[in-house]
Each structure stands twice: as C-alpha cells, then as structure tokens.
C-alpha cells in the first residue's frame, strides 16, 4: 500500500496494458473494416417470387451488437462471481473487481441497447419492441446495475458499500432467469432470431467477422477492466494512506491536549 508514497507519477498504465490497448485499438479498426467494408450486406432472394429481402446493410451493426451483448453478460457474470468471492473472502481485491466489472459491463450494456435499437429500426421497423424477451431482459439488467452503481456512489467510503453492493449484484444476476422467464411467458413471442448466427447466410467471412468482433471486444473490455480495477485499487490505497496520516495527526493532537487535561486535573484537585 505504499504505492502513493514511493511512486511520484501515478498511472494506471503498465507495459502490458499499453500493448493490450494498442492491440485493442488495431482490432477495433480491423473490425470496422471487416464489418462495414469487406462483408456483404444481407440480401436474400425469395425462391419463388424472386423478391429481395433480408437485413441489407443493417446486418453490419450485428458484428458490433452481438459481440458486445456477449461481453455484457460476461462482465456481469464476472461481477456476480467477484461479489460472491467478496462475501466469502472479505478482501478488497474481490470488491474492487466486482465494482470494475459492473461499471464496464453497464457501459457496454448501454451500447448494446443503443446499437440494438438502431438496428431494430430498419429491420423490425421499430426502435423498441415490448415483449421481446432478450430486449426486456437486457434493459432490466441495465436498470438493475444502474441501481448498483448508484448505491456505490451514494456510499461515503468504499468499504461500507462493499457488502450491500455484493448483495445487490447477486440478486440482480439471480433475477435474470426470472425476468427472462416472465417476459417470455408475458407476450409469448419474440422477434429475436433464435440465433443470429443460424439464420443468416453464414459465409466464412461473416463467421470470421463475428468471431473477430468477440475477440476484439474481449480485448477492449479487458483493457477497460484492468484500468478501472487499478483506479479502484489506487482509491483504496489512497484511503489507507490517508488513514495512516490521519492517525499520526490525531496522535499529534493527543500529545498537546495531554497538557490541557493535566491543567484540568490540577484545577479539579484544588
């Protein structure tokens, strides 16, 4: 915990994360080229009428949307696992991990909702579809974690938020199957393809771009997680450091008031 005392310039970067960051950046550029230039739009021809149908250029958004959705759920799963770890072990490492995962997960989740909505406009002819299971589940998950982050921010010091936050994260993730099930029954319909990968004409290039998307967003999310974790860790170190200083200061106060109380004593005894 002496990071603050020894290192003059504090950064959350390291050689590893800088390389990772560069790789992620290059990956994003490559992914954009593949998704928006090299792959074909989704155009299918009806076997009898010969009419053209499909998702056309909108399908390109899926190369971003689907990997991000997968990463959102991965980040929230990590948050839940770290929360459980915290409740079992009670060490700050787990707590800082859970917080980092929740924050990054919520950011990606917001992007998933936005890209999904933009994609839905041309393909489903609506920005938002009530009763779609995955849509509703993801939105509620997003709202649950907004509550989680609000709770984190409301706490005076990071320690006191740790346990309630862990409970909230676990309940949120446990709630997911229930939300999923209830929405599924609710409208008993879903616009989502059972699997996006299955319905599209899967060509080698399409599949490659999707896998590339998952890898690239995996890198981006890992990079964000590492930095967010380090910020959280430094915050903790700062608190500990501040406490050490405060103890020293307070003990300094004690030695001076010691004199005062002696004065007080002589007065009382007279």
């Amino acid at each position: 915990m002496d990071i603050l005392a020894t290192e003059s310039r504090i950064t959350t970067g390291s050689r590893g994360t800088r390389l990772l960051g560069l790789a992620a950046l290059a990956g994003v550029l490559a992914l954009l080229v593949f998704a928006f230039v090299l792959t074909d739009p989704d155009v299918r021809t009806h076997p009898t009428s010969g009419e053209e149908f499909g998702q056309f250029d909108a399908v390109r958004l899926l190369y971003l949307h689907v990997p991000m959705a997968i990463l959102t759920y991965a980040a929230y799963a990590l948050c839940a696992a770290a929360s459980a770890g915290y409740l079992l072990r009670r060490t700050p490492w787990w707590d800082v991990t859970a917080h980092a995962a929740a924050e990054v997960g919520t950011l990606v989740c917001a992007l998933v909702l936005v890209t999904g909505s933009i994609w839905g406009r041309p393909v489903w002819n609506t920005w938002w579809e009530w009763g779609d299971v995955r849509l509703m589940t993801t939105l509620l998950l997003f709202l649950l974690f907004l509550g989680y982050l609000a709770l984190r921010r409301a706490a005076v010091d990071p320690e006191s938020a740790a346990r309630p936050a862990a409970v909230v994260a676990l309940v949120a993730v446990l709630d997911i199957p229930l939300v999923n099930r209830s929405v599924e029954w609710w409208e008993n319909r879903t616009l989502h393809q059972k699997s996006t990968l299955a319905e599209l004409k899967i060509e080698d290039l399409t599949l490659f771009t999707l896998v590339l998307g998952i890898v690239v967003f995996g890198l981006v999310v890992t990079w964000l997680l590492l930095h967010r974790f380090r910020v959280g860790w430094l915050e903790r170190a700062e608190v500990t450091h501040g406490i050490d200083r405060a103890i020293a200061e307070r003990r300094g106060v004690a030695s001076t008031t010691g004199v005062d109380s002696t004065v007080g004593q002589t007065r009382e005894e007279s």
Partner: protein
Amino acid sequence: MREVLADLSLVAAKDLRIEFRSRVLANQVAPFALLVLVLFGVALDADQRTLRSFAPGLFWVAVLLCALLAVQRSVAVERADDAVVGLRLSGMSPSALFLGKATAVLVQLLVLEVLLTGGIIVLYRSSVEDVALLVLTGLTAGVAVAAAGTLYGAMAAGLGVRETLLPILLLPVLAPVLIGATRAFDDALGAAAVDGWAWLVLLAGLAVVLTLVGALAYRVLVED
C-alpha cells in the same frame, strides 16, 4: 426455530402496534393509493373500456408505489431514535428480524390491496371472476414485494443515504413480480384470456426465492 418465531412475532407486533397508533397507513398511504387510481383514470382520459382492461396493471403499479412508502416508514421507525442499535445488541437473529419487519409490511400491503380492489371495482368497473385466484395472487405477490422491500430498505438505510436510492434498487428487482401479478389479475378480473394459475406458480417461486434471499442477506447487511 421456536425462538425465531417468537422474535418474528415480537418485531411484527411491535411494528403493527406502532402503525396502529401513528396511523401513517390510514392517514397517508391509503389516501395516496386512491389518489394514484384517480390520477391513472384522469391520465387515461377515463375511457371505461381502456381502464377496465388496464386495471390489473394499474392496480399493481399502485401497490408498488405504496410499498415504497410502507418500506420507508418501516425503516424510519427504527432509525428515528436509533432503536436499530438496540436491535443489534438484542441478540435476536437477523433472519427473525427480517421476517418480522417483512411480515408487518406484508400485513399493511394486504390492507392496501383490499382497499385498491374496492377502488378498481368502483372506479374502473372491474369485476371479480375468480376470487380464489385474486386472493392467492394478492397474498403471494404481497409476500414477494414485502420481502424484497424490507431487504432493500435496510440496505438503503444502512448506507445512511437518502430514500431516493430505494426505488432504483427495488423496482427493477420487482419487475417479474409486476408482470406475474398483472397477468394473474388479468385472469382473475377477466381482463384478458390468460392462464392466471400458471402465473401464480411463478409468483410463488418468486416469493419463496426473495424471502429466502432476504433472510440470508439481512444477516450479511446488519452484522456490523
């Protein structure tokens, strides 16, 4: 186990006695519940057919809003003069404490539900077609709401943060309860052709899970 039941009823009876004396439910929450029904009516332009078919959803939204008030009151009772310190020193098990507080909230919710049922019958012309389903749904969904509310109420209060945190924490968790209870009421009130009893099963599952999670998590929250 006997001890847990004794502590549970001690805490629940205490909360209900305080409620009976202070009449916050009767003087503030119940009128608020009716006000919500009237506001929905005005907002939806008082079209009888629309109101009748929306009645189940409006009913449960009103219950959730009232539950927020009931939970905040339940927390405030302990916080006003720091009685919560006494509870922590008492040696009562946190689970018993949780179940006691939740039971008191449940009883108040049930009273409100009866009132709101009268409200939708009179104001929205709803008609009860399946009494058993209506009663069981009211009870099971009430358990789920009271359990989750008590847990999250303690959480928001334990952090010493404003009551504003409670709705954003609690309402998303209760989304499946809202959906389930609304659907079951759709059937019980004849507002839509669905199988309400299947939804009741989902609600029962939710009530059990939330109560168990609450009783366990409360221990984690109040242990220091």
